[in-house]
Structures are given as C-alpha cells and as structure tokens.
C-alpha cells in the first residue's frame, strides 16, 4: 500500500503551445481534419510512503507541484490522491 498521486500539468490557456500546434498540424495533415486544437501537458505519477496521512500527502504534493513540477509563470496544475 502506498499513496499514489497523479499530477496533471497544463499550459495556461493564454500561453502559446508550440508542441500542441505542431501535433495538431501533423494530425490534420495525416487526415484527422476534425481535430481543432491540441494542447500537450505533463502527467506525473508520484508514490508516497503509506505512513503519511492523506492531508500530509496533499500538502506535500501541492508544494511539489508549485515548486518543481509546474512552472507557475506559464503552467497550471491539478492532482488527485489515491491509496493503492
């Protein structure tokens, strides 16, 4: 058993996403014309020791996202916590 945290980091809507734009263009060229927008973000999975309380895990995860996983200048994040 351990705490499993899934973190989703996305570029803020106003921030340009060159990767997404390039992937979209490629998909359109490959024939997937119905794809109108693509945004590429990060999906990070963290394992925490089971010993921690859920509140503790949430607090640490939030700090970790803010400090390291997301760049608050341009990115937003959210995360979920499960016991697995």
């Amino acid at each position, binding site marked *: 058993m351990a705490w499993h945290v899934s973190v989703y980091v996305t*570029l803020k809507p106003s*921030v*340009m*996403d*060159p990767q997404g734009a390039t992937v979209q*263009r490629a998909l359109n060229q490959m024939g997937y014309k119905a794809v109108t927008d693509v945004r590429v973000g990060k999906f990070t999975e963290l394992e925490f020791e089971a010993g921690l309380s859920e509140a503790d895990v949430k607090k640490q995860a939030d700090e970790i996202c803010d400090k390291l996983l997301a*760049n*608050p*200048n*341009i990115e937003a994040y959210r995360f979920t916590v499960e016991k697995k």
Partner: protein
Amino acid sequence: MSSSIMNVEVTDKVVKEHGLKPDEYQRICDILGRKPNITELGLYSVMWSEHCGYKHSRALLKTLPTKGDKVLQGPGENAGIMDIGEGWAVAFKVESHNHPSAIEPYQGAATGVGGILRDIFTMGARPVANLNSLRFGPLTDPKVKRLFTGVVHGIADYGNCMGIPTVAGEVVFDDSYAENCLVNAMSVGLLKHDQIIRGKATGIGNAVIYIGATTGRDGIHGATFASTEITGESTEKRSAVQVADPFMEKLLMEATLELIHGNLLVGIQDMGAAGLTCSTCEMASRGGAGIEIDVAKVPQREKGMTPYEILLSESQERMLLVAKPGCEQKVHDILAKWDLHAATIGIVTDTGRMIVKENGKVVADVPADSLTDAPLYHPAKSEPAILKTYKEFDENSIPVPGNLSEVLEKLIADPTIASKRWVYRQYDHMVRSNSLIRPGSDAAVIRVKGTQLGLAMTIDGLGSYCALDPYEGAKIVVAEAARNIACSGAQSIGMTDCLNFGNPEKPEVFYYLDRVIAGLGDAARAFNIPITGGNVSLYNENPTGAIDPTPVIGMMGLFQNVDTRITQWFKNEGDSIYLLGSMGQSIGGSRYLTVTHGKKTGLCPTLNLEVELKLHQALKALADQKMLQSAHDCSDGGFAVAVSESCFTGTTHEQKSLGATVSLPGEGRLDGRLFGEAQSRVIVSLKPADAAKVEEILKKFGVPFEKIGTVGGDSLTIGKEVKVAVSRLADLFFTSIEKMMA
C-alpha cells in the same frame, strides 16, 4: 487586458502606467497636434522605452568608433556586417535577455537566443555560431542553481534545435548578480556581399507582408518591462513570459534565407522587442517612407485582440518584410512550402506616416520617424564615493597564505574559473561541421567551407574591475577579448558590445556608464577594431542595489589561413614554455582576493594599450609562421591558473593532461606574482628548435619575454612555491561545477 482598452481614456494615470514622463507625453501631443489615443500612446510608450529608444545611452554610444575598411554595415541595423574577403562577409551581434531570464530562466534564455538569431538571418546571413555570456549569484545558492540550470537548458534547446553550434561563452558567479542574472546571447552569420539586405521599406505601393508565428497576447509590454527595475510588482507582469518555438524559427530562418537569396525582397526586419510596432515604424523610417497596415489581417492566435494588443504583442518567431514589385506571389509560395503563415497586411506609402487600421478604420496615425526618434537624455553623473575606499585599500593588510598550492587548488575549483564543460556539453557545438576549435580554449574557431578562411570568436565581460575602475576595466575587457583572439592566432577585425548596468537615472550609475563607454572607445581606437553594433541593458537592479557595471564584448577574429590556428593547451613533452609580457605583484581586484580573502576591492590592474597591441601583433606573427604549439592568456587567477589551464586539454572531445615545471618570474609578493592579474601576459609553448626564431620575432615587436620552463612530468611545479599533481588539478578543474550541480 480586455477589448474595452480601445475606449480607455488617456489620463495622467494611464500615461504614467505606460512609463512615460509628463514632458514626454507633452512632446507626443506636440508631434501629433492633439492628444494621442490609447493605441498611439502604446506605440510611443514601447518605442520610447529605454530598451528600444536608448534614451539614456544614445549620446554616449555615438562616441564609439564604428568605421573601418572592412565595415559593410555599422550600428543602426539588426546586426553589423564586416568583409572577410573572397566575397564573404560576417554578420554578428550580441543582445541581452536579462529581465526575461530572471523571471523565467528557460523561456527567457531560449527566446533571447531566438531573438539574436533573427537579427542575424534578417540581414541575409546564415547563422553559423552562437555564443553566450552568463552571470549569476554564487553557485552555492539553490536558487542560483535553478536559474543556471534553466538558462543553460534554454540556450541549449534553442540552438540545438535550430542546428546552430554554440561554440563559446563565459559564466561568472558573483554576489553582485544574485538578484539580477545577466544573459547575453551573441550570434554570428555568414553571407556573400551581394546577399546583404536591410530593414527598410521603400517603393511606394510595395506589399508589406507578415510571416511566421501567429500573434498572441504574450509579452505585451516586454520592452517597457525590460526598462524598469525588478520589484515585487513585476511578478504580476508574469503573463509577459513568451514561450520559445525553435522549430518555428528554424522554418522561418530557412524560408527567410530562401526569400532573400532569391532576390524577392526590398527589406526585412524581425519582430523583437515592441513587436509589430517596432518593425513597422523602423522600416518606414529607415526607408524615408510611410507605411500603412491593417491589424485585422495579422494572423492571430487568440480571439478578440485589440489593435493595441496586436501592435504591442511580443510573440516570438515573426518577421515583417516588403516584397519587390511582382514578387508577392513568389513570396507566398515559398512560405507555403515551409508551412508558414504569411499575410499581406499593408503597403508602403510616401506619407512618412505610420497608419494603422482595423478593418479599414484608422486606429493610429503618427509620423513614423517620431517613434524612432525617442527623447535624448543627458543624465547627471557623479563619481561614487566608494571608489575612494577602493583606492585606499592597503594590500599589506592581506597576509600571504602559507600553502600556495592549496590556494591554487581552491582557485582552480572556483566555479567562475573552473571548466564550464557542464555547460557546453549540453550545447551542440559541432553541428554544421565547421567547429575547428570547440569550447574550452581561449577563442572558438570555425572554418568557412570552400575557402582557407576561418573565424575566431570570443565573448568576454568584466564587472569586477569596472566596479573598481570603470575606465580601466572597460579598456581591459576589450583587451582581453582581443587577446583571446590573438592567442588563437587570428586577427581581431570587429566587435559588438552589450552594456549591462543599473538605473541610469542614478548619477552614480550614469558615471559608470560614461566612464565605461570612454574606456571601450579608447581601447577600440587604439587597437583599430570598430564596434559594429551592440545592445544596452539598463535597470539591472533591485531594492538592494545595482549589479556591477558589466560591459560584455563579443570579438570577431579572421584567419586568412585557418591552418594557423592555435589552442591553449600544451602539446608535447619537452616543449619550452615562455611567458610573454611582464609580471606584476598586485592583488587588487583579483579573483584571488575575492575567493581566498572574501574581498572585492583595491586598484584593479592597469593596462597600457600600446603594450597590449604589440603583444597581439607579435602573437599574430608567430602564429602565421606556425611557431607556437600553444598560447593562453593570463586572466582570472593570474599566472598560476593560466599555466595550470595549459596543462589540460579541456574539450568534450579530448581529455589529456601534461605536467610542467616552470619558474616563478618577477619579484615582490608571492601571491601577487602567482595569482595577481597584471595585464598583457600570455603563456606560450614552442618546440625548442623554434626558440631562436620566436625570440627574434618577439624582440622585433618589443614584447618582453622570458623562458620559464618545460612541458612534461605528472605534476605542475611553479618555482619552490607550488607543486600539485596534474591529475588532481585537472579533476578539480573539470568536475567542480558538475559536483556542485549533482
């Protein structure tokens, strides 16, 4: 910013928020003969910012020497251009991206590289090399580690993706930059004389075409932002961060060069600071023409953007061009091939006015050249009181350490002196297969394929000396850059400068600026090396103070025959080692004084420009006759560090060490002789059989010299004072930064 901005009334408060002073606002009203609307106010605010308008530095910059036989394009364009013979020319320029990098190191540094690359290829040159000059606070600080990591990563990703080798640079860690890091990027491009194109709009009725990335709301007011001090408030301006898209820029570069080399354009200019506004009014004003554009035709990334936002956006990877009559369709075809956006957004007119419409309705109408003619200030200056305390510093108060080998070990591992392999290993420094001398030696050298020509290049800055003595420090930074070129065997032909200072409205800061520019000018004249362009970055300060005044020099050198190039490391056991130049004993302003004794004070070394020039001429003569096995100048860390650095081959391609036994010349303080930074000194090695010839040439140029020892053995021995195993020194030198960053 909402679309209601169109209706914003221009009040005193709004004027102030745009960074315009009351008399500047009055001047705008006088020019227009009426009050500006908000869009027009936006145009003036960015164009009259320090970043674009050089309000506080323009008068001083005019004093710099910019002319020479080889200068094909001096300051005033996107980059300077010099003739290098055989129909070839070189374009080069340096630019700062300090403020954006402080806020967002990866994107800030990356877009800095993108910006300087556009300056090069917009002149018709294919970029062939990048350089960078970086300054941070002490590397022991975790915040600095993150900045350093991000900046290097940003520079690496952008240059690597573009396929431009990053071949040289410098990194300095010093308290003065703890809150204001410096990120200066330089780029070098090659072109044929007949490929030169300029950023001007001419030919009434010619199409004005926008190409490249779409315009979004990013970076609005970046130029104004770069012209203010970093305060708590600037965190709110974070939306100003621009995201780099090197892939887009690579396409833009290829397409642009295809357009220029296909002879389809009248003029072209990149959109950098102040975006569409800057490119439009500068092109019109250079061409002595007017320009009329419709912002509704600009490719946009976001919905509902106002003319104000479109004009001021600093979205990256965009260019503005004027097509030759009848070439418009060909332009569009080439852009389609590269899958790039292109839109004809306006025409060249003969009115001298910059007229901006939105769906046909005029939203701004101003004289184009009034935007490029920012107010000129002659700020007050006063000599900082602290300079007096530096002069009064008594070196005798510093005891000479007992164990000088230990001092050498400490200095060699100092992150400012230690190998920057951790950095340049992340840069593709070989792509284009021209890099003959790669990072690690005094100057990088690239070849010009199909010829025997070669280019040497280096970038060097100097804050510590300039803080102590701005005039002398500025002379030294030019001398050091030129000396690095001379050590590689090339002839310095031209330079570009980036002046990083604090707030020029403070008299002490302006004093520094004034003296530094005087020193740069005198050195450039003495060496007969023109300054073909540069960049000024002011307001590098925070509530705790300004950075050390830091001029950075990018120097270009030329080889007629690139086979005469020289690297800094010893080659063969048994070679003779010579010191060229004279020893000193002063420790004022030295890295040694800072690292070992924690002091930044004293008189910095002085430099005799004539003596220095003779040294360069002698080195060139020796190189031309292939008399030298190695040449390395004495700079940070002085004599002992220079000899040590010659003992190890420091590229990412070869790692080899050779020991040496040398005497310690000169007289006086031992630490001063070992680690003092007296100028105009070079350590060379040569085959014993060439000694007579070498000495004869040195005598002819009047360069003092002394044979000090021999290459060989497993350790470095300097007189009776220093003996260290070379393997130990090499390990400290190469792994110091790597270990700190692990």
